[in-house]
């Protein structure tokens, strides 16, 4: 049901029945290693290109989620997923393997919540019984696509971010089997915001206004106070973006508790890992939510969270042509 200007409320409470999360070697050394279902110690995942490696990550995440959710592919109606690589081929190729009717999404790093919102909407209105949704990224494949060759010795400034290697896929169903499972309650779809920043090594700064806009809209549409949520988590704003968005929200009249305002990009890696400002990438918010955060919720640490995935909608071409970086953010609230 539409509430306010741009938000949905899911009265049927679509359930996130199971999740599958895979990651690479760098993530295995990070903070959240125990929340992964599959961890690779080889960045190539046994493939001969990084793009294929990313496909493997998605395939594995899909397999895991179907196993854990105890469901056959015939019973899954749709797969809604995306990534950052050329025309989202890794996801499409994984969908070819999965043989599930497929919506390919591109929302850059906001793909995870865009997918979860759409999946919840479908399930809520009986457009589907079981939907898989997810997002993925691969560090080396993304670097190659957007920046320099991985072996190139260019210096990254401290505002740069490290693209996470990993895929997170969730199974959204209409079954309420009484178990202690998280469910989605509402979603806010953001609009594209461009504050004219052009530095591709400062994504956090570019994406912060989009996050602030979506959070403000969400709270206004649902008439909530920030304290309604135990935790508000942004996707991959990292250090620079997180501080900026807190500042922006305060000017909007929303006082956040910094201890209850986290960022996936900052949670994923340890302090001593060379990630500059923090993690990023389409997979970043997917693996942190579907791995770590839902586990925390099942343990009862958090009851209500709002996840705001942010995406920078640039391409290597657009920034070389001197265009600024348009950004977007989508929010989904999850309760248990």
């Amino acid at each position, binding site marked *: 049901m539409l509430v306010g200007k741009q938000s949905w409320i899911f009265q049927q409470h679509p359930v996130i029945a199971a999740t599958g999360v895979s990651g690479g070697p760098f993530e295995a050394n990070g903070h959240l290693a125990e929340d992964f279902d599959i961890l690779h110690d080889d*960045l190539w995942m046994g493939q001969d290109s990084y793009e294929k490696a990313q496909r493997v990550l998605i395939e594995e995440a899909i397999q895991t989620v179907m196993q854990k959710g105890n469901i056959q592919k015939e019973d899954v109606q749709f797969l809604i997923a995306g990534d950052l690589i050329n025309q989202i081929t890794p996801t499409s190729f994984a969908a070819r393997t999965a043989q599930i009717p497929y919506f390919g999404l591109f929302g850059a790093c906001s793909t995870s919540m865009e997918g979860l919102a759409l999946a919840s909407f479908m399930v809520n209105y009986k457009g589907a019984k079981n939907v898989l949704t997810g997002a993925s990224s691969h560090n*080396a494949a993304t670097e190659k696509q957007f920046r*320099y060759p991985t072996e190139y010795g*260019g210096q990254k400034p401290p505002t740069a971010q490290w693209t996470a290697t990993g895929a997170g896929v969730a199974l959204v169903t209409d079954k309420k089997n009484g178990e202690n499972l998280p469910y989605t309650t509402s979603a806010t779809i953001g609009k594209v915001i461009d504050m004219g920043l052009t*530095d591709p090594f400062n994504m956090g700064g570019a994406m912060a206004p989009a996050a602030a806009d979506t959070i403000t809209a969400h709270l206004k549409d649902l008439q909530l106070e920030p304290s309604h949520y135990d935790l508000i988590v942004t996707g991959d704003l990292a250090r620079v973006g997180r501080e900026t968005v807190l500042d922006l929200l305060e000017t909007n009249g929303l006082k956040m508790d910094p201890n209850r305002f986290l960022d996936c990009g900052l949670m994923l890696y340890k302090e001593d890992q060379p990630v500059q400002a923090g993690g990023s990438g389409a997979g970043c918010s997917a693996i942190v939510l579907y791995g770590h955060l839902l586990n925390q919720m099942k343990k009862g640490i958090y009851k209500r969270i709002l996840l705001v995935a942010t995406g920078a909608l640039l391409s290597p071409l657009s920034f070389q042509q001197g265009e600024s970086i348009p950004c977007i953010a989508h929010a989904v609230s999850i309760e248990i």
Partner: protein
Amino acid sequence: MLPMFFWAFVVGGLICVVGQLLFDVAKLTPGHTLSLLVVIGAILDGLGLYEPLVDFAGAGATVPILSFGNSLVHGALQEAEQHGLVGVLTGMFEVTSAGISAAIVFGFLGALMFKPKG
């Protein structure tokens, strides 16, 4: 010879500091910075200033990418001395061929031998 090492270190280091300032203060990408330095090298040689620096600092002046512009001009001028204006075109790679051909050959060998580590 020992002072040569010292001055190579100092001059080479200073040229790199110029590059770093172009990165950090002027916020240029590595591609822009290196292209700019090569052009500066070419102009310095045109003014006759680079050769004394090479005499003075040895590898401190020949190893930084500036010297690429310098040797391009050098080759062109040498050839122009003998063959006139056509020499400007034909002599360009006379001196720099080593760097470019080494980069091509070793680049290809590298692609044969290695995979990106990530």
